[in-house]
């Protein structure tokens, strides 16, 4: 079976301004959401306690709310269904430092009259740990980007590195915008998902860039736009197929993976879509806008080659004993 059969290059770069506009709009909207509505931090980052309770049959959510409200110290606690209608999650800002005094035990006592239930999970994170985790999260994101920047500069050229990192920032920002838009709770797993998007989107971009690098060395016409068009079209089949398989896998995770990894798989789902879009339509035009020149690159490569050859020659001469 073949869906994408190469006939002639798609004219993408001539329309790059339009894609740029779409991306810019999405970026601004996402940033707007992040700064106005803000993240819905879960207990991992904000501190607090989460208690997951499963009932025999339908959970009496109103009774649970009333029971929790009888204790003043739980003011502001939220009770919501989790997954099906037999489970509820209670979230409170409270946390207890004492080992003997457990928020979970107290809630269990409060709920005593609400029916037959089992407490399945109690997560408690102190406020200090929460802020430490947040700092660590931001730090890891920045470090990953820095590492990638260095590697890509080394393997390609600095403009490729900047373009791929800008595409990454584009993807992660839009994914964060969607997280805010859908009110997904931000916990450690979302951080992991964002870092995975980082890796995935990069993967996609690198493969397109690899083809462009190859095109620069093999295609005679030194016009960057047409080289990009040709390379992107050549990799279109692969980009779409891989995105589809990854999308399928993440979709099954989203649909069947259970409530606990819902936020994680949702973020990945967004990431796969945005990552695919950006590697085709965003990363390559940035290369053009950064003023990458094919002939300069070829000149440099030729010089590098010459230097290496000379070195080789010298070594050969040295080994032959002529020097």
């Amino acid at each position, binding site marked *: 079976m073949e869906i994408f059969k190469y006939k002639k290059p798609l004219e993408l770069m001539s329309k790059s301004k339009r894609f740029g506009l779409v991306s810019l709009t999405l970026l601004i909207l996402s940033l707007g959401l992040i700064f106005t509505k803000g993240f819905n931090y879960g207990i991992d980052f904000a501190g607090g306690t989460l208690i997951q309770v499963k009932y025999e049959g339908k959970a009496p959510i109103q009774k649970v709310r009333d029971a929790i409200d009888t204790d003043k110290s739980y003011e502001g606690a939220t009770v919501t269904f989790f997954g099906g209608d037999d489970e509820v999650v209670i979230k409170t800002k409270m946390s207890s430092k004492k080992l003997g005094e457990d928020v979970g035990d107290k809630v269990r006592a409060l709920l005593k009259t609400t029916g037959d239930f089992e407490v399945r999970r109690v997560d408690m994170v102190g406020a200090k740990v929460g802020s430490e985790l947040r700092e660590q999260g931001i730090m890891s994101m920045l470090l990953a980007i820095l590492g990638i920047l260095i590697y890509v500069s080394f393997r390609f050229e600095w403009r490729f590195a900047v373009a791929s990192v800008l595409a990454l920032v584009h993807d992660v920002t839009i994914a964060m915008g969607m997280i805010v838009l859908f009110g997904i709770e931000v916990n450690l797993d979302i951080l*992991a998902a964002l870092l995975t998007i980082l890796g995935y989107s990069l993967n996609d971009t690198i493969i397109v860039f690899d083809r462009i690098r190859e095109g620069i060395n093999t295609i005679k016409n030194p016009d960057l736009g047409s080289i990009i068009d040709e390379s992107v079209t050549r990799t279109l089949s692969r980009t779409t197929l891989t995105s589809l398989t990854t999308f399928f896998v993440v979709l099954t995770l989203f649909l069947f993976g259970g409530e606990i990894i819902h936020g994680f798989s949702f973020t990945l789902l967004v990431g796969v879509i945005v990552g695919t879009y950006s590697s085709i339509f965003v990363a390559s035009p940035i290369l053009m806008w950064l003023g990458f020149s094919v002939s300069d690159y070829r000149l440099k490569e030729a010089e590098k080659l010459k230097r290496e050859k000379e070195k080789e020659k010298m070594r050969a001469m040295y080994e032959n004993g002529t020097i």
Partner: protein
Amino acid sequence: MYQKRLTLVKTLNFRVILFAFALIFGVVFSIPSLTQSEQGKKITLGLDLQGGLHMLLGIKSEIAIESRIKSMAASVKYIFDDEEIIFDDLRMVDGEKITFELLDKDDVIKTTALLKKELEGTVLSENGLKFSLAMTDEEMVRTKQNAIQQAVDTIRNRLNEFGLAEPTVAKQGEDKILVEVPGIKTQEDEQRIRELIARAAHLQLMSVDEDRAARVSTMSADEAKSFGDVILQDVNTPEKYLLRAIPVLDGSMLTDAKVGFDENNQPVINFTLNGQGAKIFGDFTALATEGGKHDRMAIVLDNQVMSAPQINERIGGGHVQVSGRFELSEAHDLAIALRSGALLAPVYVMEKRSVGPSLGADSIRSSSLALILGFVLVIIFMFIYYGMAGAIANVALIGNLFLILAIMSLFGATLTLPGMAGIVLTVGMAVDANVIINERIRELLHEGKSVAKSIEDGYSNAFTAIWDANVTTLIAATVLYAYGTGAIKGFALTMSIGILASMLTAIVGTHGIYQWLLPKIDKKKLGFWFGIKAEGAK
């Protein structure tokens, strides 16, 4: 037929043999994990999958300093009494230092020499006959570090004695302790474990200040302090006791603690003191009964008075009994805590996650379902789209999955829920390498190259792209592993192993299979082998 088999033997190459070995290795070493057999190394399930308690504890190390000062004070008093040095006004100031005054000028030189010899890591400053004794800065740092290490060891001992399967207790960072206890069945067990860990188990024998004991009900804490006393409460009743602040001796001189029963068949704890402790205890009880007195001695545990019996005679041998109207399970846990030693500094909870066993089982079920479903979908898709080339990629994918399991089993790695997600994702990404390769091969076939040339060039053309893409993803995964905590680490780990394994299976393995099968690939059947129409092929 014979001829054909011979050609397949001829085309056996190192790549396909390497892949076969990897596959056998993968299957053999993942069997113990898959069958959950007793023997062999296998993957440990994370607490989120098997249920259990995860805690990050902080430690109040300043309390360790304070109690160190306290025991220094007790030593000073003991030394002075022993050497018959007359002193006055021995007290602790702000939990930082000890001050005292000598009455005889002739004792000064002897005292300085004695304290220097007996108490290491202290600085003594004098002002006439007034002295103050404090810890050196290095000693403070050492005491704090010691408190953390001691807490780690103590908690580990307590959990081991409690009889739990494989608890983990480890120092994390500079001043945190990670405690992981898998397989807790009930809420009551969890609570007992938490209390066992939290128990300071700080045992002190203190003398009752009999001169002022009658006034205890009206005395304020500050007033008591001015006499060098403290007011402590009984563990069961509202009764208060006025006690000398500097204890006679503490739990560090204890050698054993056991549960026993008293004459009323109530659980009690019998403990034994070491030689020094027994001597101090004997001297003290002799003094308390001197001249027909019947002074009381309070047995204090974690700043609560367990009992305050009257002393009727000198007690030698160092055997002491504590009764406190315990439940049997309470006495049992307390004896463990006393045996494994006191915590030099109290611990507090910074983070706690507990997962019930039923939730863990649910998580395993749903994520396995997602994993299998995603896997099957990818395999079907690859076969439909690429024909035999897809099937070859699928063999590599299965090999990859087994390799991940085998490597994790060999390292005894922990599989968490995000780790499962990492494997699912690796399946999606590992197949990418084969998509890239197959697309390259198709491209070359369309250009009219021969099958052998298309395969060889296809691999070499695809290699840089796959390499660079994998390395960059590995960079991200490594950072995640280094900076992540707990569950996130699991995700990064499975992904890294998956990427490395896919280099072997998806690149080397499939290449070997193509080279091996080459004599069988019919260039007229490109539809069957590569899923394309044979139009351009020669």
